[in-house]
């Protein structure tokens, strides 16, 4: 692994320790993972009162368990440490991939890696998704390698399928790569069928089995658009603009380049581009997949003045730098704020929320409530799919004060509502006799 890549990775790893711990999905991931660590894989819901006892997905059990293990070892600082390590590895792998494609050109490698680092920045959250992104970054150089590297994708897919649903994209790419190689390497095409079969089997060996495919398929083919990160890439937002710029750079580079790429390279880039176009959260995948292409073809403005020098970095210097990077990361984790940033959560409103079932809460507060008010089961939370369609539809009908919302609230037996002051129901429910038990700039508690 090039030292330059490690140092850049450590730099970004240290920087990401400054990011507060506040992701709304983190809390339900940790709660679920805690159950797994107690050797009770959470196959039924135990956190809500609307789907209590019903089956829930276990497709991210390992990702959840890693986050819970981080929490068990070091409280929220342990979770932050996982983020720091994951981002360090992610940036290191991306940069190393760029350097491998354009050896000895760190300036070009940085330029090629920058769009991927910038876009992946929006996924540097405390979720299994970050681990999935890391797996994808590892997959890209493996797919560009030989048969041995292709074989290594099988154990990678096995682990990835337990971490996060994005493994489905990895599986598609491995299959596409096998097909492309079978087409172009005709003499040895027989090799690729068993590799493809093993890749498929590797994703099925897990507690979810075939169910993990349905979860991934649901996300990829029918993303729930009302969740911001599942929306289409929007050029009027920073991540959407970055994606459009990245795509523009890749297209311009391809148009102005004189080299023709292989079918294998196309089999990697084209499916990833389509997936990235489907939803904002998938845009980093394309930027990461395009890193080798950009590194190989980007213009090197200082090539004329560059002199070939023998590397002055021997193993001792390298070891010293790596030790320095590790020390810097440990220091960054130790000095980071290890508490949850609750500025966006209704902490003060909790004293007006009674224990027991009957609470209708905002979607994005559900996970946090599992941690902050474990005696009060939630109406809905970020796990989403178990709540689709009935609970989610009813939640939206009540929250937006749609026609007949009172009947819906009656049917469920909603006794309390914890919503934002700007929600239509916060305006409408007091008109219909609900009492405002608590109100501040973040939340309103309404009691029947």
């Amino acid at each position: 692994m090039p030292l330059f890549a490690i140092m850049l990775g450590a730099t970004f790893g240290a920087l990401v320790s400054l990011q507060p711990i506040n992701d709304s999905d983190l809390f339900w991931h940790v709660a679920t993972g805690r159950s797994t660590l107690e050797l009770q894989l959470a196959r039924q819901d135990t956190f809500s009162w609307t789907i209590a006892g019903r089956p829930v997905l276990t497709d991210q059990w390992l990702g959840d368990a890693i986050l819970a293990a981080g929490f068990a070892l070091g409280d929220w600082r342990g979770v932050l440490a996982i983020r720091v390590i994951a981002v360090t590895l992610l940036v290191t792998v991306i940069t190393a991939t760029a350097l491998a494609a354009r050896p000895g050109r760190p300036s070009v490698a940085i330029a090629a890696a920058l769009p991927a680092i910038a876009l992946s920045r929006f996924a540097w959250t405390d979720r299994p998704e970050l681990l999935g992104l890391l797996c994808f970054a590892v997959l890209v150089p493996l797919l560009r390698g030989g048969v041995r590297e292709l074989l290594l994708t099988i154990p990678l897919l096995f682990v990835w399928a337990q971490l996060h649903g994005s493994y489905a994209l990895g599986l598609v790419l491995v299959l596409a790569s096998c097909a492309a190689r079978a087409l172009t390497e005709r003499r040895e095409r027989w090799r690729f069928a068993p590799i493809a079969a093993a890749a498929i089997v590797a994703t099925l060996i897990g507690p979810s089995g075939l169910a993990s495919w349905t979860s991934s398929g649901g996300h990829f083919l029918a993303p729930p658009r009302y969740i911001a990160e599942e929306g289409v890439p929007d050029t009027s937002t920073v991540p959407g603009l970055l994606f459009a710029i990245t795509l523009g750079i890749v297209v311009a580079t391809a148009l102005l380049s004189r080299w023709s790429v292989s079918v294998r390279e196309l089999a990697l880039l084209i499916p990833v581009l389509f997936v990235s176009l489907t939803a904002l959260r998938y845009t980093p995948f394309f930027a990461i997949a395009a890193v080798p292409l950009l590194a190989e073809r980007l213009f090197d403005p200082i090539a004329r003045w560059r002199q070939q020098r023998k590397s002055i970095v021997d193993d001792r210097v390298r070891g010293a730098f790596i030790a320095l990077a590790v020390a810097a990361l440990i220091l960054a984790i130790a000095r980071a704020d290890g508490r949850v940033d609750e500025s966006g959560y209704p902490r003060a409103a909790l004293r007006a929320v009674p224990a027991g079932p009957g609470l209708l809460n905002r979607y994005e507060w559900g996970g946090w409530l599992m941690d902050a008010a474990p005696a009060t089961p939630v109406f809905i939370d970020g796990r989403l799919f178990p709540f689709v369609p009935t609970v989610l539809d009813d939640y939206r009908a009540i929250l937006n004060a749609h026609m007949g919302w009172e009947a819906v609230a009656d049917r469920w037996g909603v006794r309390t509502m914890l919503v934002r002051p700007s929600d239509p129901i916060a305006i409408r429910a007091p008109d219909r006799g609900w009492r405002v038990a608590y109100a501040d700039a973040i939340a309103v508690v309404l009691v029947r």
Partner: protein
Amino acid sequence: MSARRLAPLLVAVATFAIAVAGAPSDSDMYWHLASGRWMVDHREILRSDVFSSTVMGQPYSVGEWLGEIVLYLAYAWGGWIGIVLLRGVLVAIGAFFLTRAALRSGAPVLVALPLVILALVLSTIVWTDRPHLFTLALFPLMLDLLIAARAGAVRRLWLVPPVLLVWTDLHGGYALGLALVALFAIDAVARRRQPLPFVIAASLGGVATLLDPASIGLGAAAAHAAAPPRFIVEESPPDVLTPAGALFALFILGTLSVALRAGGELIDAVVIVPLLYLGLSAQRDMPYFAFAVVPYLAARTPIALPLLTAWAERIKQPRAALPGVAVGVAAMAIVALAGLPAAPDESAYPTGALAPLRQRTGAVLNEYDWGGYLIWRAPDQPVFIDGRLTPYLPQVLADWNTAIRLGPGWRDVLERYHVNTVLLRPDRPLVGALREDGWRATEGEKNWVLLSRP
């Protein structure tokens, strides 16, 4: 005559036949027509609002006065059939020049035509009866003109300033045409091949767009492209999981695939990349990216996929094929002309609410996309808001949103604008709240409800 020479005409006629099949139904068409009628009746350009209760008398301009007048004159000449025919002719002009541009590289007809057809299918999302149609016709015209000029027919560049002069008053999309000319001028300067005519054409074209102060300015056009109003469906970013979005994605994937296999020239990069950005920024701009890449794909697909091209060239055309296709296309056009829709499709509008609405007094709060319809069909009842959008920014639009979504202060909005009547879709939160508050409801068949203050 060869298939190559006849193809643009055949594609144009076939496209015309398909384009005239649908009845007018666009929600913005009505206020464009009303604006055109006002200007023809008053013999002056409409510079202030005369249709709403919220911004009545306030100055505004959508800058498409000539497009609105032409649209209204088509209506005055032939009723709704006039509107349909205008749509068919403009779409056919676009199809004609797009096909010519695709075939200029010498690509086999069987490679170029599928690309043209796919781009035209994508463009159906903007086959709406608005001044936008003029941009749909003029963009391919300008593209073909510039490609021809780059290939040596430099004299045609003298057409650029007059085309831009007229385009500027027809539709705000003229900025696309001007940008296209500027990009070709950059390419000519970079290549050092006859840069002067291109630079002069771009400069005079730029001046031509500034001559009419009543047009929408370049700054406003650029601002609209940079920050599209997302709550309007056509202004939202492309969703590749919809049919049109999937087609757009197909063009992106195809362009990248061909570029990676066959490369391109500077002109390809300077034209395709900005239009790719534009297409990604709003659904309504997706067709212009497709139009821009069709000539590139037609030229380079044979290099990227030589086997496909060899196959296409090997296909022997039966002697009767071309006359057969020509007769078929002519028959399509005759059938289409015989069955022209003579009335608009108003099934999406609150037609049944018009009669009770006329008996109401006081201001009416209406759905955004019904505003134009009400301007045309109930001209005595000023609207709260409509598709012209700009006169309502920012305050009226914000207030309208507050009211219909039951935001904080929604009652104040109704009081401030003296709203006595509400005409909305039944699932709006405001409808439920007003019913509960005792407003009298007149039910629509399925898609509207009219509420009156008790």
